[in-house]
């Protein structure tokens, strides 16, 4: 199991209801069903990936994250997950807001744009970075927004979002020291602030 997935699985309690926004082929949801016996529901825009989810016995909405979220009642899921998908939504601020309304908790993971190798590529090479966590060229990337771990801390402070847990990962290992410079991926467990 990918360390990113393991961290998320550890944060989710047994039997919880989970909505994975941008669930891809359902890998994480499948693990959650097996390990934590969750009520699993996914959202995925790619038709072929929807077929993969159904093949795994998962329930998935074939729709855009931005479009379908508003239809869910308040607090109707214990956990919402945005695993590597927030940066691909058209309106991330709206999505986080809605996700915090629908989910009692929200887990967000994203590729950290503050990492030294990315800074290096921009600063020295003068090019938009291509890294293992951000493997796309500028002309065919699904990523519409780029953010760093520091950016996300700022965001949570400004928007009064409560950060309950954080984890940082590079190359399948935990990063604890200066994560904004060293981590490939930031993972946050959030809930609504007071």
């Amino acid at each position: 199991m990918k360390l990113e997935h393991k961290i998320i699985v550890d944060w989710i309690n047994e039997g919880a209801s989970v909505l994975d926004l941008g669930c891809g082929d359902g890998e994480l949801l499948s693990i959650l069903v097996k390990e934590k016996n969750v009520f699993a529901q996914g959202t995925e825009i790619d038709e072929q990936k929807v077929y993969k989810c159904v093949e795994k016995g998962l329930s998935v909405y074939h729709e855009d994250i931005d479009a379908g979220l508003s239809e869910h009642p308040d607090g109707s899921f214990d956990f919402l997950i945005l695993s590597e998908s927030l940066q691909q939504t058209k309106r991330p601020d709206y999505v986080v807001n809605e996700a915090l309304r629908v989910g009692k908790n929200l887990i967000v993971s994203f590729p950290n744009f503050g990492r030294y190798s990315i800074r290096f590529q921009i600063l020295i090479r003068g090019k938009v970075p291509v890294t293992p966590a951000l493997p796309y060229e500028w002309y065919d990337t699904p990523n519409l927004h780029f953010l760093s771990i520091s950016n996300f801390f700022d965001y949570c402070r400004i928007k009064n979002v409560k950060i309950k847990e954080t984890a940082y990962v590079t190359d399948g290992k935990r990063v604890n020291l200066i994560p904004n410079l060293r981590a490939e991926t930031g993972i946050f467990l959030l809930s609504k602030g007071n």
Partner: protein
Amino acid sequence: MTDQKTHAVLQNATKSFSFGNPPNELVLESGDRLGPVTLAYETYGELDASRSNAILVCHALSGDAHAASLGNPNVPQGWWDSMIGPRKAIDTDRYFVICSNVIGGCKGSTGPSSINPKTGKQYGSDFPIITVKDMVNAQRHLVDSFKIEKLLCVLGGSMGGMQALQWMVTYPDRLRSAIPIATTMKHSPQQIALDEVGRQSIMGDPNWRGGAYYGHVPPVRGLAVARMVGHITYMSDVSMNEKFGRKTRSPAKESSKFEPVFEVEKYLEYRGDDFVKRFDANSYLYITKAMDYFDILDSKSLGEVFRGLRAKVMVIAFKSDWLYPSYQSKEIVKACKLAGIEATYCEVSSTYGHDAFLLKVDEETHLIKHFLNSVQNGNNSTKNKGFLLNDEARAQNNR
């Protein structure tokens, strides 16, 4: 003698089930009473000891009980042969499949062309108005006769999907899952309008005789034109282009300047003429009316309609279907979200239009096969969280 229920063999694999002998008639939504009621039905596969592997397949406007031939060369192809059979998506080695002709139909079930026991003649226009709910209530009697407490799944496309939705609402405790395909929670003005053109065509045919044409020449012209309109709505612009283009064929004889010349005209003519041989015009009127009256919400809010339902649902739409556009399927999904029902939605990118649900579309087969598999294996199916909704969410449901 009263409340007697009987099963009999009609022809080929088609059997019949009768119930509702007076004074225990089927009470219709209109308040009228209909009885005795006969349902033509077929079954495929074996009902298991726990009676938990039964799937009810519901047909569309012009369908019948003969859903599958199971590869038997001595019976005609069923309307869903590509889906039902050994090792197919609806695997008859695993599931017990039931398909019945709807009431109001003309393929062995009680309808306007059946004999009215009160007069000894065909009902014609004396047949009461029936609704999708009435169709489903009749099916429920058939399901009861097999002592099946809970269906593994109820599924169907178009009007078959309406029946699946009706089962979800009227008998939420009698099914573990449902697959409404290419369907809607209520007929839109466009759908009603298209049906009305078909009905006017039939009723405008002098041979219709107010519905009392039995024993005379039936209104074949009117019914054929109704079917032609129908077929246009079942295809898409793309599929018509691919199938016909602007190809022409020389007319058989120089009888008229307006003889059909284009392939598409010939096709519609053929479809219309073929249909009148196998379908009753009055049934067409009654069944299209049932579809037009269909409104599963019935003044309930979207959040209320599936309340209490604990089933797994899969909604399928087709991108090129303009008769039942995907926004109508998304409404069903929205109602599932509000009720906290575990649901799958897929908009399949097919170019076949509304027809796609009946054709051999691999994506649809794949979805149904794996969905049924997960329901039978209990994957998540007992974990419906509808009952977990908090008060706040419930309040919102009532909006």
